[in-house]
C-alpha cells in the first residue's frame, strides 16, 4: 500500500453488479488488478445458530432463505440429511417429483443468472426474454407449492402434498416450448461479437486451482472437471435418469456461459423423462411419528388432529448421530451436515454453501485482469449472498 503507483478502490457493497451486498477492495496498477479482497457478511442472519433453537420441521423454513433463487434444492439438501439421519426411504413418486421440481428450479435459477449476467455486461434484451420463461416456471412452482420463492414444499419424509392434477399438462407445455427459447438466447449471445470479446479468455480458472479452492458447480465444470453430485453420489433416483454433464475447456467466462446453457437443455431432458416415467402411489414415506397427516384428514379425524399438533409442537427425536446430505444446486454442491443429540432440535446444523467457496476463488480469477472484467467475473460465477452470509 505504501507504493504510490497503486490505487486502492472500493467496489460495493451497494454496487448494482455485485448481486447483493458484496464489497470488493481492489488494488490497481492503472487498469490492471494487482490484488483484491472480498468482504462479506452484510447479510448474516445466523441461520446455523437459529436452527439449533428450532425443531427439525421448523428448521426447514430457514433453508429456503439461503439461496433465494432456488428454494426447492435447498429444501431437498436439508431433507436428505435429516432422512439419512433417521433412515427414511421415500417412495418413488416422491423422489421423481422432487427431481422434476428441482430441475425446473435449476432452469429458473439459470434464467435469472443469464438475465442479470448479460445485463451487467450490457446486453439488456436477454433480461426480458429470460424473465418471460422464468415467470412460466414460477407459475408452475406457485401452482404446486403455493409460493414463488420460499416454497418449503419438500419436507422431511416426502413432500408437503401431492401435485395438483394440472401439473403434468403445465410442465409438458413448458417442456415443448422451452427448447425454442434457449435457441433465442443463443442467437442473442453465442455468436455475438461484443459478447465474445467481453467474455472469452476473461478471468480463466485452471482445473487444479478450481479443485484446490473447492469450487463446484458450473464454474468447476467450465474448467473441464467432470464432477456433478447428481452423477458422483446419486440421490433421489438421479441414477435412473439419462443426462450428460456438459464440460468446458478453458474455464473462462464464455465457457461458464456455454456450460449453463447446456445444463438448461439437460435439465429439460430430465424433467421430460420424469413426467413420462412418473409412477403412481404415495409421495410420503410411511412414518406416522415424523410426517404430519394430510390437511383433509385433520378436518375429519380427531386422532389425525392430535397427531398434527404433536408433530408440529414437539417434533420428532432422531437417534444420536450425524449425517451429510448434498445436492447439486444450480450453484454447485450444497450440503447440510446435521448432528443429532437425540433431542427434538438439531444439535448442530452446518450448511456447506457452494457460493461461499466459488466467491473465494474470485480473487484468483481476476488477478491481472481489467477492472471492467470484475463485473463479468462476478456475474459468471453466479453468487447469491443469501447463502454466502447465511
Amino acid at each position, binding site marked *: 500500500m505504501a507504493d504510490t503507483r497503486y490505487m486502492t478502490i472500493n467496489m460495493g457493497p451497494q454496487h448494482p453488479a455485485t448481486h447483493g451486498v458484496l464489497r470488493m477492495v481492489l488494488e490497481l496498477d492503472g487498469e490492471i488488478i494487482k490484488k483484491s479482497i472480498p468482504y462479506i457478511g452484510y447479510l448474516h442472519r445466523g441461520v446455523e445458530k437459529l436452527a439449533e433453537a428450532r425443531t427439525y420441521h421448523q428448521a426447514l423454513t430457514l433453508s429456503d432463505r439461503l439461496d433465494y433463487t432456488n428454494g426447492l434444492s435447498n429444501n431437498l439438501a436439508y431433507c436428505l440429511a435429516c432422512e439419512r439421519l433417521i433412515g427414511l426411504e421415500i417412495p418413488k413418486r416422491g423422489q421423481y417429483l422432487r427431481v422434476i421440481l428441482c430441475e425446473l428450479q435449476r432452469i429458473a435459477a439459470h434464467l435469472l443468472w443469464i438475465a442479470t449476467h448479460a445485463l451487467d455486461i450490457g446486453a439488456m434484451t436477454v433480461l426480458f426474454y429470460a424473465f418471460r420463461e422464468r415467470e412460466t416456471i414460477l407459475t408452475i412452482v406457485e401452482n404446486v407449492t403455493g409460493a414463488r420463492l420460499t416454497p418449503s414444499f419438500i419436507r422431511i419424509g416426502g413432500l408437503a402434498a401431492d401435485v395438483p392434477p394440472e401439473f403434468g399438462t403445465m410442465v409438458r407445455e413448458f417442456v415443448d416450448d422451452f427448447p425454442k427459447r434457449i435457441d433465442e438466447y443463443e442467437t442473442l449471445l453465442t455468436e455475438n461479437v461484443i459478447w465474445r470479446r467481453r467474455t472469452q479468455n476473461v478471468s480463466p480458472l485452471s482445473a487444479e486451482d478450481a479443485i*484446490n479452492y473447492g469450487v463446484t458447480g458450473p464454474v468447476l465444470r467450465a474448467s473441464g472437471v467432470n464432477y456433478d453430485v447428481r452423477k458422483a453420489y446419486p440421490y433421489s433416483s438421479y441414477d435412473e435418469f439419462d443426462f450428460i454433464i456438459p464440460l468446458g475447456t478453458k474455464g473462462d467466462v464464455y465457457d461458464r456461459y456455454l456450460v449453463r446453457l447446456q445444463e438448461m437443455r439437460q435439465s429439460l431432458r430430465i424433467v421430460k423423462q420424469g413426467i413420462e416415467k412418473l409412477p403412481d402411489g404415495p409421495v410420503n414415506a410411511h412414518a406416522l411419528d415424523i410426517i404430519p397427516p394430510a390437511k383433509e384428514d385433520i378436518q375429519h379425524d380427531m386422532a389425525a388432529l392430535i397427531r398434527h399438533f404433536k408433530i408440529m409442537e414437539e417434533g420428532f427425536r432422531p437417534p444420536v448421530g450425524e449425517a451429510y446430505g448434498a445436492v447439486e444446486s444450480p450453484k454447485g454442491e450444497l*450440503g447440510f451436515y446435521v448432528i443429532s443429540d437425540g433431542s427434538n432440535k438439531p444439535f448442530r446444523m452446518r450448511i456447506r454453501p457452494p457460493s461461499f467457496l466459488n466467491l473465494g476463488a474470485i480473487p484468483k480469477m481476476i488477478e491481472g485482469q481489467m477492472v471492467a472484467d470484475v463485473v463479468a467475473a462476478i456475474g459468471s460465477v453466479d453468487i447469491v449472498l443469501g447463502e454466502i452470509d447465511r
Partner: protein
Amino acid sequence: MSGESKAVRKLIEKFTGVSLRVEESNGATMVTVGKEKARDVLLFLRNDADCNFDMLTDQFGVDHSSEKPRFELIYLLNSLGNKERLTVKVRLAEGESFPTVCDIWKAAEWFEREIFDMFGIRFDNHPDLRRILLDDDFEGHPLRKDFPTEGYGFDQPFTVHLEGENE
C-alpha cells in the same frame, strides 16, 4: 457397507501406533484422530496417490460444551477421481489452537476464518486470520453453546449520540 476402502486401509497401515478410530455411520466413513497427528493424516490423505482426496468439501467446528475436550473440528474430504468421501474429526480443548491446512487445500482459508469467527478457535500459520461474517468489533463467538440465540444487548435501549454533544 462392509469392509474398509483402500484409502482407509492404507491410512491405518501408514499410521500404525497412532490413535485412529474408524467408524461407519449413515453411509459415511469417519476417522477420528488425535490432535498431534491430525495434520500429518490430512496431508497424507491429500498427497497419497491411492487416497487422493483432492477437494476439501467442508470444514467446520462443533461445540460439545458439556464434554471434554470441548470443541470438535470436522473435515469433509472428497476424492473426485475415486468418487469417495471421508470425514476426519479432531477434538480440541478450549483455548487450544490447531495448525492450518490452507497450504494443503486453499479452500480452508475461508473455512478457518469462519471457524475462528464462530467458535474462537485459532489456527497457527494462517495467512489472514480475521473475522469473516461478523464485524471486526463484534464480541463473542455466536456458535458456542453458551452464546444466547438472541445475542447480547438486544433488550438494551438504543441511544443516539449526536456530533458535538457532550458525554
